[in-house]
């Protein structure tokens, strides 16, 4: 409890108000949905990590990047995968250098205890993302990406780290956090996360942006696209997402498509249905989906959209 309130005090000390966060999100070019600023403010206020869930491609990772930009903090990213273990996530000893040091010092005639003390010092410790995140002098943003891909064991370990913010290295002792990172976790829902982890975190469900927001995202990212085309593209993508597809196009695909259309000199989707249909491959990821989106379907969607 003492630890936790200390952590809270530290973060509250430098926290921004909700409106400031909202303004800064806009300033760093992140087109925020309505409630994300509240969630980001609450992270600091309650000193809790934020869990973002949503489809692949809705822009969960972007939220973490925007958060780092808002606080002018470093972004440290840990990509999870099945079989991720502490060596890859937390720390590792630099064996090669340790061995070299041993050989060198043996030659110099030092005694064994002194050598051991030396080679298990911090000098030979390799930081991995989790350790790096708690040893920065200023609090970074730690992005634990796709936490659902990691194993249950790792999740339990992560939970422990998130509540204590200290790490014990057997050869070295306990390493306490220098600063408490802001932690963002993302999940695609390939595995059910534990209740404990869910309860520890604030929760935000990230949905596909609505047409208006997606159009604003296109405009923010691709200055060469004009407002009319951006809106048409956003409407078209929204219509495509309603089709029964295997892989629903994400925001990145929308941006690709808009860039391609702009590159081809298209200013109005209605004027060039040919180009629209041919460039739709930017949105489509599987053979079946390609077969389903025939020219007739494209034209029908286009008719509804434009």
């Amino acid at each position, binding site marked *: 409890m003492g630890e936790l*309130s200390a952590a*809270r*005090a530290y973060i*509250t*000390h430098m926290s921004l*108000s*909700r409106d400031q966060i909202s303004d800064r999100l806009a300033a760093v070019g992140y087109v925020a949905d*309505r*409630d994300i600023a*509240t*969630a980001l*403010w*609450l992270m600091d*206020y*309650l000193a*809790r990590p*934020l869990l973002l*869930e949503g*489809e692949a491609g809705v822009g969960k990772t972007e939220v973490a990047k925007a958060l780092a930009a808002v606080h002018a903090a470093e972004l440290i990213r840990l990509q999870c995968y*099945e*079989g991720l273990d502490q*060596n890859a996530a937390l720390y590792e*000893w630099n*064996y090669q250098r*340790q*061995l070299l040091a*041993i*050989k060198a010092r*043996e030659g110099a005639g030092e005694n064994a205890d002194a050598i*051991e003390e030396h*080679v298990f010092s911090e000098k030979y410790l390799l930081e991995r993302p989790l350790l790096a995140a708690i040893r920065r002098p200023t609090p970074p943003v730690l992005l634990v990406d796709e936490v659902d891909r990691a194993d249950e064991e790792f999740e339990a370990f992560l939970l422990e780290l998130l509540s204590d913010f200290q790490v014990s290295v057997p050869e070295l002792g306990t390493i306490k956090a220098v600063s408490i990172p802001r932690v963002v976790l993302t999940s695609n*829902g*390939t*595995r*059910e996360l534990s*209740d404990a982890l*869910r*309860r520890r*975190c*604030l*929760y*935000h*469900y990230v*949905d*596909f942006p609505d047409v208006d927001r997606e159009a604003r995202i296109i405009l923010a990212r691709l200055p060469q696209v004009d407002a009319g085309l951006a809106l048409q593209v956003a409407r078209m993508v929204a219509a495509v*997402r*309603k089709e*029964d*597809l295997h892989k*629903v196009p994400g925001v990145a695909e929308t941006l690709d498509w808009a860039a391609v259309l702009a590159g081809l000199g298209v200013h109005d989707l209605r004027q060039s249905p040919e180009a629209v249909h041919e460039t739709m491959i930017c949105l489509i990821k599987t053979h079946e989906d390609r077969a389903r989106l025939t020219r007739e379907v494209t034209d029908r969607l286009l008719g509804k959209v434009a």
Partner: protein
Amino acid sequence: MAVEPIRASVGSIGAGARARLAGFAATLRENGFKIGLAETRDALSILVSPAAARRSSLKPALRALFAATRSDWERFDAIFDAYWSGRGVRRAQVARVSSAGGGAAAARRSVALPSQSPQGLPDQVDRRSGAEGESGASPGGRRGGASRAENLAAADVRHILDPDEIAEVHALAARLARTMRARLLRREQARRRGRRLDIRRTIHRNVSKGGTPVDLVWRRRKTKPLRLVVLLDTSGSMNLYTAFFVRFLHGVVDAFREAEAFVFHTRLAHVSPSLRDRDVARAVDRLGLMAQGIGGGTRIGESLATFNRWHARRVVNSRTAVMIVSDGYDTGEPELLSAQMQRLRQRCRRIIWLNPLIGWKSFSPEARGMQAALPHVDLFAPAHNLESLAALEPYLARI
């Protein structure tokens, strides 16, 4: 310490506001939210923060704190509005909430956005629905069964009263769980003996010996248990066997470390949470209520489509065996069933189709649905009694 002012002002919240907030937390818990003391305490902090000044920021703040899953997320607004602007009539609020949830689900389905989260599904059966059904207040009108459905429930009760049989079915499920050996993973684990040398760990261990590899560390492949997913057809044509298989399901969920159970007739329902109830009679009772169809045939293809779209990503992986228990009498389109079977086949390790009718002497798999599904099935076997299930053991051992 910046914390002190917060703590002090939390103390300044009146008893009335505290009670209202506690009531809100209780209402959320009744609706299946998992909320602990820490969350309630943090909610008090939010109430004294600037966010509480406006409803437009208070609601998302409390939602971010209290919601933990997508279904929580989607239902929160309705519960929030009902509680904070309602007249405090809890029963009415709950009803309003569940109908609002249903409306949202219907809206989602109509736009057919494939938001594949396992939570908040159109077919999701509320854990409470079984319990509420007894008082006739089951949400979603799941209670409106035909007389045949009531027969089925009656049959359930009759069978539950026979403890020996329950024990026998349970023991069988446990034996199957043991039989389905742990699967080998590609991941390896450090061991004292094994196939391959773990060079990194060997060097680490021998740093104290100057790097001379005295103690060797080996790697060996790690094992993980096979997961079993059972889809049980509870339509009218299966009603002779439903009671038996419901108990089998209970045994499976109980005995397997990783198992999921679904029932379907015209729609698909995820029933593992209800089955995890230790009280067999109550679990089976709940399931009996869920299994009661609204009538109107079996839609195997559609149920499988629902499964593939909403559940498969979470519950099916490359070491999952899917067991479908059905007589194959499908009132939907065989093309849909075939396509969905193919999709499922690509995801899982094996599909086992158990058909109780095979036990009948004059049986041939003539049902259209059965014909459509068969090409994608790895094992097609009878399942009309305990012996036929036990006969699966050798097969499951080889998967």
